[in-house]
């Protein structure tokens, strides 16, 4: 049995278009209007698609790139060594930092011998491409783990996020360590 190309329908919704004259009933449009009303009233009772944003948050995909986070290791020390590769790789030039040498007695705070005393990302410049994450040799910066969007602000200055907003909270690092053991 051979099927002609005209009778094949992949979607199953194929419909022959016809240009025939409308009958009197069709020209009255009343039936069509009632059909339309039926369709809209069905939508009235359907489940709503809205996500009530501040109360409900849409589920993030595992590879979603949101607000950056500077990671701590399993002992709660900052990973970043202020090498500057993230700033170098950033196409939007959103990252600046200032490096400082680790003093004696600060070993519990910073993993490497050099650390970033100032680390700032301008969220208005950032394009969330994730190249900083790829460039980082110390596993320090991640866009996927904060699971947070950058919130709206009133002033431009407020979009420059310093270490206070970027570094992973200690509780989160402790919880991660507990999960490992």
């Amino acid at each position: 049995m051979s099927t002609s190309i005209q009778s094949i329908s992949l979607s199953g919704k194929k419909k022959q278009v016809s240009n025939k004259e409308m009958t009197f009933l069709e020209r009255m449009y009343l039936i069509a209007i009632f059909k339309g009303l039926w369709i809209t009233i069905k939508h009235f009772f359907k489940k709503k698609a809205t996500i009530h944003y501040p109360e409900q948050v849409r589920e993030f995909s595992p590879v979603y790139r949101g607000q950056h986070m500077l990671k701590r290791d399993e002992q709660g020390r900052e990973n970043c060594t202020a090498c500057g590769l993230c700033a170098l790789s950033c196409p939007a030039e959103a990252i600046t930092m200032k490096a400082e040498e680790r003093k004696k007695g600060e070993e519990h705070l910073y993993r490497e011998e050099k650390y970033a005393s100032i680390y700032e990302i301008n969220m208005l410049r950032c394009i969330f491409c994730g190249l900083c994450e790829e460039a980082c040799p110390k596993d320090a910066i991640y866009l996927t783990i904060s699971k947070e969007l950058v919130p709206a602000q009133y002033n431009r200055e407020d979009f420059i996020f310093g270490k206070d907003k970027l570094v992973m909270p200690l509780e989160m690092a402790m919880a991660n360590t507990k999960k490992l053991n």
Partner: protein
Amino acid sequence: MDSAFIIEKSIFIVVIFAVTMVMAMYSTWAERKVAAYLQDRVGPNRAGWGGLLQPLADGMKLFAKEEFEPNTKNRFLFFVGPAVAMSTALMTSAVIPWGDRLEIFGRTVILQATDTDSAILYIFAVVSLGVYGIMIGGWASNNKFSLMGAVRAASQMVSYEIAMGLSIIALLMMTGTLSLKEISVQQHGMHWNVFYQPLSFLIFLICAFAETNRTPFDLAECESELIGGYHTEYSSMKMGFYLFAEYANMFISATIISVLFFGGYNYPGMSWAIENWGVNIGNVIGIFALFAKLCFFIFFFMWIRWTIPRFRYDQLMNLGWRILIPLSIVNIIITGICILAFK
């Protein structure tokens, strides 16, 4: 005329005024809610429970907005336009029977501001005055889009008033009276006019959509062609008056449809309720019955708005002059033959 009568009527008029305003206010809320639900959204839900305080917030916003006046010679007319639109929208409610009667302190209170013999004529007269609000506003705005919107509104209303009047004539031949009270009384016991005059009802309904300038006949404020139509230049509460007048008109049209075709305040088992529960309770239920009917029609107005797209202007005129008017004349002839044959 004793003073108790005057007090009674004054209270009643104030109550009607308040109810019309509240209904118009909450129609804006209902419109947004219905629109949202028909489109799988939620609609306003921040101000108050389910957004119920939203109309108050909107009203406050409109009062607080800056008043913009175009550089026009007709400053007086620019102010008069919204006032005319609003007052004509509110005037029609005077002759509508909201219920039968109540007996309070031994007095019989008729639930109607005034029962004139020419109630329907009065309504037609006032409704056709409503177009002046739009015309004056559009003309005084000194803006070609406003003027075009006003011209469209005027010609549309004039054309559809003819079909509306003719559709009512068939109804009047049957009822034999112009008084809305009489028409309500005649429909007692499920003798609703819609069962005897379905065609007249259909024509009247379509014309009511056109008269209130609502979709699918809202060419006067067709955004894609005319920006905002006749209220393009208006801002602040003057704009609010125009929008409010539309909703007040919608409320009144829904009421007139319910009174003329759906029995007004009559409901099934009304005489039983009056006999067993007393005049007051039976008639208060009647008021609620009328409100249930008119709320359904307000909902219907909104339902249609989010179902049917806007007509093109020639289609609008075609429907009005070449379909509805001949159809209503045919309806008159059929009604006349039926009256001759069966009475």
